[in-house]
Structure formats: C-alpha cells, structure tokens
C-alpha cells in the first residue's frame, strides 16, 4: 500500500473520530425550547383531567364525600401542573384558561360542604355534572393544543439540530480535505520524490535532482541527498578520469622504453656504442617516471585504507633540498631551479615522503610554466618551524579553481588549454596528506598568468636549538 493510500485512510479515521463525538456535542448546544421540558407534565395533566371526568360518575352514585375528596386531590395536582406550565413561559392564554377552569371546578366541589347534594333535584344534579364535564373538556382541549404546539417546537428543534450537525459535518469535511492536501504536499510528495532520487542514485544515475527546497527538515534532507549525489557524481567521474589518465600516463614511458630497445635491436655494434649513453639515460628516466606513477596510484589507494605509516628519522633538510633540486634541474632544459636559501637544519620526519612532496612541487612548477624560466626554492626557519617554498613564473592557478586544488583527482587546469599537461591530479592531494600527517601545513599563493608559490612547514626536530 502506498503512503498516499495510507494517508487517505488515516484521514478517514480522523474524520470519523472528529465527526461522531462532535455531532453529539454540537447537538447538545442547540437550544431546547422550554416548552418541551414540560411535555411530560402536559401528558400528566391531560391524564388527570381524564380521571376527573371519570370521577364525575360518582356523583350519580350519591357518594359525594368520597367523590369530593378525589376531585379536590385531582384539582390540586392540576394546579401544580399549571404553575409549572406558567414557569416555562408558555403563552399566557393557555394556562390562564386552565387556571380559570380549575378554580371553577374547585369552587364547585368546595361548595358542596355547605349544600347537601342529596337534596339536589335530578335536574340540578344533571346541570352540575354537565358544567364540570364542559369545563374539563375545555381543559383537555387546551392540553391537546399545547401538545401539538410542542410537537411543532420539537420539529423545529430537530431541524435546527440537523442543520447544526450538517454544518459541522461539512466544516470537518472541508478541514479534512485541506489537511489531506497539506500533508500530501509537505510530507507525502517530498518523501516520494526523495525515494525516487535515492533509488536513482542507487542505480548509478546521478542526474535526478531533488526538486523542492523547503526550509524544514525534509528540505535539508533533500539538500543533503543532493549534495551526496553531487559528491558521488564528481567522485565517480573523477575516478573514471583518473583511471583513464593513469592508463595513458603509464603507457607513455613504456612506449619510450620499447622504442629505445627496438631501435637498438636494429643497430650495428658501432651505432649501439654511440647510442648507449643516451639509451641508458632515457631508460633510467622513464623507469623513474613509471615508478613515480605507480607509487602515486598505490598511495592513493593506500590512503583510502589509511594504511600509510610514517617512518620518521632525524635528517638534514638542507641536504635533501640540495639533492632533489640537483636531480629535478636535469628534468627540463628550459627550466632552471635556483636555491635562494637553504638553512642547515635537522628535522624529524619521514625523509622519503618529504622528498616526494618536494619533488611533486618542483614537478608541478616545471609542468605549469611551459615557457621555461626559473624556479626558486627557499628553505628557512620561521617561528620555530621549517618553511620550504617553491616559486615559479608559470601560468598560475585560476582563482575559481583554487579552493579545490588539494582534492584527490582534482586537476586545476581541467578544461583549459593546459588540460593535457600530463598529470594524474593526485600529487597535491598526497602531498597535503603527508605534510598534515607530520603536523605541518601546506599552502600556496597564485596569480593567474603570473606564477605560483607553494610552501609547506614542518615542525623542527627536538634536537634543534632547544
């Protein structure tokens, strides 16, 4: 069952939960007419009057005393009912008529003390009975009229109650519909969108972007997923590019080695002897290059598993700088590496790694100043730490690319005409990892078109100056 269906069911349940008790409550707020309260009394009144009528029969039986007491009792009861009726605000003419009639009948009965009923003639007796009959009939009439009025009131009451309840029903219905749409838009649909996006990402499709951008938790979930998708996309693309670049980079030195050896196969002794020095230098150079590339690739995967361990020793930094600059100077004829400052100082670090860092920086300087020129190296002590800088007058790093330069696989000149400068994009990433692991910092200043200065710091050995 989809969440939309579930939402719908939940809504129906809420609707019923609101409606049923609500209706009862609403109905109770409808004003009950006063007159309905005395319906019972009216029924009783009529009943008593009927009794009275029947009691008239006793006069014929000449048991006046007993009849009289009965009549008086009934009459008193009728008076109570009439008083209650008066209290309820029923129209005056009704209870006044009843009052009058009741008084008349009572006087009739009370008057019988003084008179002797047995002395009454038959005609006189008949007259008495008919008078009482008439009056009680009047009262019964009034009672019936009152009852029908009450029926009408009851009808009106029921109608109004129905109206209230129906209004309530529609109000709740409208609220429920609004609430359904609200929940749908702000909860259900976003969740469905998120599900679609994440499913896509799981399948390796990074193109679907979460569309909404509310400022609530679902919105930030959406943004987090977008960011994750983007990172994955970049990483996947970078990795693919890295692999393709790595394959290409590795094949180039191999091609040189192969061509060198094949050339020599086709040479006679004399040619071989002449060619040998160049061949050997080339082979050496290419093997170094291959090794560097292989190491880079391994480092990148090793760092992924965080297995790199530093083997720190005390060594002379100035000697390292000398050796590296000497070797790197030979790499390019158009470039000259100049050491402006080289302080004799001992550092406690992994010499191999630091060498790799320095080689990487110098390599970059050469690669990214294609016109040739000088690369200045300085190694000095500043604020209790060693600082090494490498400065070139090359093409520089574009400002918008600068903040990502230490990222794995990132090549700042991707998409520019310098894109094809052979580089796998891992050198700076690795360099940063190494320097940071030593507790040092690495950074740069660069102006596009003017040049770049890279620098790194290392803590000094405990043996130095303490």
């Amino acid at each position: 069952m989809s969440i939309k269906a579930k939402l719908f069911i939940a809504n129906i349940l809420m609707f019923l939960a609101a409606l049923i008790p609500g209706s009862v409550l609403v109905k109770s707020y409808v004003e009950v007419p006063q007159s309905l309260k005395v319906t019972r009394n009216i029924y009783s009144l009529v009943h008593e009057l009927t009794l009275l009528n029947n009691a008239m029969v006793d006069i014929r039986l000449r048991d006046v005393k007993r009849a009289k007491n009965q009549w008086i009792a009934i009459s008193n009861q009728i008076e109570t009912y009439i008083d209650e009726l008066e209290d309820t605000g029923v129209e005056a003419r009704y209870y006044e008529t009843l009052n009058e009639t009741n008084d008349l009948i009572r006087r009739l009965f009370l008057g019988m003390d003084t008179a002797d009923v047995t002395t009454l003639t038959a005609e006189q007796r008949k007259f008495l009975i008919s008078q009482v009959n008439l009056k009680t009939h009047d009262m019964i009439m009034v009672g019936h009229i009152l009852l029908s009025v009450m029926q009408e009131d009851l009808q009106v009451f029921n109608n109004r109650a129905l109206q209230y309840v129906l209004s309530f029903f529609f109000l709740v219905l409208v609220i429920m519909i609004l609430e359904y749409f609200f929940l749908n838009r702000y909860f259900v649909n976003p969740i469905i969108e998120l599900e679609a996006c994440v499913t896509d990402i799981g399948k390796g499709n990074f193109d679907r972007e979460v569309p909404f951008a509310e400022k609530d938790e679902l919105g930030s979930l959406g943004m987090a997923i977008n960011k994750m998708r983007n990172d994955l996309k970049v990483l996947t693309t970078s990795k693919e590019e890295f692999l393709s670049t790595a394959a290409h980079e590795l094949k180039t030195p191999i091609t040189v080695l192969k061509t060198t050896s094949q050339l020599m196969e086709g040479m006679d002794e004399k040619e071989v002897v002449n060619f040998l020095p160049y061949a050997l230098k080339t082979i050496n150079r290419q093997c170094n290059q291959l090794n560097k590339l292989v190491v880079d690739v391994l480092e990148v995967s090793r760092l992924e598993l965080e297995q790199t361990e530093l083997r720190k020793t005390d060594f002379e930094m100035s000697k390292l700088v000398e050796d590296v600059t000497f070797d790197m100077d030979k790499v390019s004829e158009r470039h000259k590496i100049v050491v402006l400052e080289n302080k004799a100082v001992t550092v406690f670090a992994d010499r191999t790694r630091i060498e790799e860092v320095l080689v990487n920086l110098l390599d970059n300087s050469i690669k990214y100043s294609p016109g040739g020129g000088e690369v200045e190296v300085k190694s000095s002590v500043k604020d209790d730490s060693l600082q090494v800088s490498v400065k070139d007058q090359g093409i520089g790093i574009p400002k918008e690319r600068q903040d990502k330069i230490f990222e794995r696989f990132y090549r700042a000149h991707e998409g520019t005409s310098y894109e094809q400068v052979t580089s796998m994009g891992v050198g700076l990433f690795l360099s940063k990892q190494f320097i940071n692991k030593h507790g040092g910092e690495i950074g740069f200043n660069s102006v596009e078109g003017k040049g770049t200065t890279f620098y790194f710091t290392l803590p000094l050995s405990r043996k130095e100056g303490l």
Partner: protein
Amino acid sequence: MKDKRILIVEDNSDLSMLTKLALTKVGYTVVCASNGEEALKYIETSGMPDLILLDMKMPVMDGWEFSRIYKSRFPKSAAPIIVMTAAQDSEARATEIGAEAFIGKPFELQELFASVNKMVS
C-alpha cells in the same frame, strides 16, 4: 625516400626524438613539433609535409583541435595523418577526425614502418 618529409607532433621529447631517429635511419627526413600549435606554424612556414604522425594528448593545442583546424585550413593539400596515442577509445576517435590510420602506443617499430611506408607512397 630522402625527399619524403614526415612531421612528428608529440609533446614527449624522448619519444619524438626516438621516433625521429628510427625514421631517419630508414631514410626519411623528419621534423618534430611539440604541440598542435607548433605543428601548424611549421606547416605555414615550411610547407606541407608528406605525412603527419599525430599524438592526441598535448598541451596548448591537442590532437583533436589540431586536426580540426588542419582539415579546414588545408582542405586540398592536406597530408595524411597517422594518429598515435595510448588511450583506448582513440581508435574510434581517429576515424572521427578523419585520420587515415591509427597506431596504438606502445607500438612495434615494424608496425610503424609498415604504416608510414604505406601512407607515404
């Protein structure tokens, strides 16, 4: 064969030097350019060679851009191109840019000679 001129467009100086050496030994005249821009300049100043060996990945102007400009600027006099590259998908791309042949790196010298001889004659 001495009158046949080959232009090598390759940024790796070791490789272009070695290839030049190999081709010179079998009697060709060989000139090297280190990127597409240099190659175009050479053609403009010294005329169209008989064959161009083109690497794809070079700085400043790569193989793709070079061949595009080359084909539009010299539609009639264009010399044949043999693409030399290490990337895998370049075979398809080579036909895309209208190269006449394709040599993958690393290559056998015999392979190179066979292809060159075929294109030049």
